[in-house]
């Protein structure tokens, strides 16, 4: 560019410069003044927008009327977690769902689009908060999130007359959670037990029978894993301290956090994990950890070194629950599907495949026909002694939930 005199550009670039919106030579004119004024107004407007942004209270949408189109539209949109449904050998079809469609004529649009409770909540929150249809008739979420959705009034009350099997066959231990007494809004899809899993080879003779062993045995330093789910890690610690996770105080909670904090500070706990503890455990990087029973059944089948123990102090139980969100178009169809999975046949077929705790009574004979070992596995069908030791985490108010999650987040590093 140096060959040109700076204030005498040749015609073509000069014309280009005048035309170009970005580099046009704007001297101070009336127009640019106006433009600046416009910018100022915009900035003021932005401030106004800022204060208008707020998020309305969740409860606004309670009582949103939902039209049920079940009779005209013989279908249902069912969102579930990955690998939470039986598949045939080709891994393409879901035999129990196919049987349901054959029997009722209701087509099931089955989507495995739930990977994580908090992330799924973030996804459906905008629609539910605005009182809109999420496009889903049936969703499956864990206790605490189900409790939150019910508390916010974002899910529909179920019609008991459509649920005769579910009403009759639901296991006693899942009947009256304190967040949904009598199961007015939800039915469990599966139960989830939190137990201690270990890798025999990595333990190398060290005995692990309780959460105290995990937290205190110096031989396990840096090879112990806890779960990043607050209710599981804190609940198991509370049980170990002789407290009841179904009825505890703020002080008890703080004491449990302090106990875990000590183990974090000394480097006893390697990390807080989500589902990814499974690979750490089978590789032996984790010698012992808190684990979900359904995973343990699978891990045991894959690698013989992995085994589990149920602490004498008890273990945490939660459920993944079927819920019908507000504005769902096919509520009756959804209820028929829920009821179908509470018949012993389909329930057994499902339990044999997914290895989680089956919440349905009277499936033992059916399950034994499919898989003898599964029917005798207390992690799938808990016997009375096992069921008696299970404890659920009490439901929390929004305020408690925020405070506890914050304390737990500090414990896990953020």
């Amino acid at each position, binding site marked *: 560019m140096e060959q040109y005199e700076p204030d005498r550009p040749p*015609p073509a670039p*000069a014309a280009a410069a005048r*035309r170009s919106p970005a580099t046009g030579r704007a001297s101070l004119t009336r127009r640019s003044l106006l433009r600046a004024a416009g910018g100022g107004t915009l900035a003021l407007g932005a401030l106004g927008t800022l*204060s208008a942004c*707020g998020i309305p209270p*969740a409860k606004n949408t309670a009582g949103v009327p939902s039209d049920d189109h079940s009779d005209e539209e013989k279908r249902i949109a069912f969102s579930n977690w990955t690998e939470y449904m039986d598949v045939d050998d080709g891994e393409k079809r879901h035999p129990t769902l196919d049987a349901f469609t054959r029997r009722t004529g209701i087509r099931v649009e089955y989507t495995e689009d739930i990977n994580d409770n908090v992330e799924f909540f*973030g996804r459906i929150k905008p629609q539910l908060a605005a009182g809109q249809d999420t496009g889903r008739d049936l969703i499956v979420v864990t206790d605490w999130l189900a409790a939150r959705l019910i508390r916010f009034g974002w899910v529909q009350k179920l019609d008991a007359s459509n649920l005769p099997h579910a009403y009759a066959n639901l296991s006693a231990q899942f009947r009256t959670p304190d967040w949904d007494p009598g199961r007015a809004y939800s039915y469990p899809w599966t139960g989830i037990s939190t137990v201690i899993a270990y890798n025999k080879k990595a333990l190398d003779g060290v005995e692990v029978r309780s959460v105290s062993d995990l937290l205190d045995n110096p031989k396990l330093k840096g090879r112990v894993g806890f779960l990043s789910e607050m209710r599981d890690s804190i609940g198991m610690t509370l049980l170990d301290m002789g407290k009841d996770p179904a009825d505890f105080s703020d002080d008890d909670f703080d004491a449990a956090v302090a106990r875990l904090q000590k183990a974090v500070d000394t480097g006893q706990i390697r990390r807080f994990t989500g589902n990814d503890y499974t690979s750490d455990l089978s590789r032996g990087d984790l010698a012992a950890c808190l684990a979900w029973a359904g995973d343990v059944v699978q891990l045991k089948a894959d690698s013989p070194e992995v085994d589990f123990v149920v602490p004498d102090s008890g273990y945490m139980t939660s459920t993944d629950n079927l819920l019908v969100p507000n504005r769902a178009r096919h509520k009756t169809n959804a209820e028929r599907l829920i009821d179908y999975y509470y018949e012993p046949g389909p329930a057994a077929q499902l339990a044999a495949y997914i290895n989680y705790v089956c919440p349905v009574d009277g499936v033992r004979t059916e399950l034994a026909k499919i898989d003898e070992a599964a029917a005798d596995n207390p992690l799938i069908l808990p016997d009375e002694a096992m069921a008696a030791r299970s404890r659920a985490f009490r439901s929390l108010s929004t305020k408690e939930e925020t405070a506890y*999650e914050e304390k737990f987040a500090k414990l896990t590093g*953020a």
Partner: protein
Amino acid sequence: MTAVAGAPPEAPAPAPRKRPPGRRGRLVPYWLLLPGILWLLVFFVMPMVYQASTSVQTGSLEEGFEVTWHFRTYWDAVADYWPQFLRSVLYAGSATVLCLLLGYPLAYLIAFRAGRWRNVLLVLVIAPFFTSFLIRTLAWKTILADSGPVVGALGALHVLDVTSWLGMTAGDRVLATPLAVVCGLTYNFLPFMILPLYTSLERIDGRLHEAAGDLYATPSETFRKVTFPLSMPGVVSGTLLTFIPASGDYVNADLLGSTDTRMIGNVVQTQFLRILDYPTAAALSFLLMAAILVMVTFYIRRSGTEDLV
């Protein structure tokens, strides 16, 4: 101002066929820009406004959030989470330096020495992108397993003693330590360093090297005085492309780290999804953005590079 005051010369008399662009003609560039502007408005400006608003709100999800101009959130966020901020800068900075040290020789090799293998090598650099970020990060858990060959070798060479002493590893393991997180960041962002470096190295005229040789420059002098200065645009854009996303990353810290390696991205994620404290999450995001902006501006000023890439 003189340049502006010296009014541009009168436009030459228009050629007979060419009429000066009318009103419609003058608007054409704006029309062409419209999709881009709309895109920025919808996906950048609006979220920013929304986020700015969220950061000064108070409330809870159940009772709703209202704008109360609660600027204290910012102060609290810094007071509570400055270690994670510091860590993010430290880890991202280390990863960027490592990427530069690893990436420069590789980019140099591909640009000047690879010959007919050049394209193959370039594809190999990009190939990891064909699999998911998550899977690649998880693979590092197998590579760095406690009883794996890598950790075994590092232990036998007493490298782990040194890194433990520096506080980068814990005992005889690498996983769940700062070192693992930095390794993961380095690996995941290496291609973002190599590609800009390669582009700017490849553009250097080979005859300049010959000329340097003719003037009795040793190879190392040639590199210091010719090659490296000419590759500065690549170095700057490579470091920016590595540092900026790395400092906001949370996957590596989550999967390869432990409680004492959490970065600011993890905090934002936890605040937003788990604790549902949207104001704090928004304030943290703004603080991160501001911090990066300041650092990057300072860096670009210092390195004085005008034409990035």
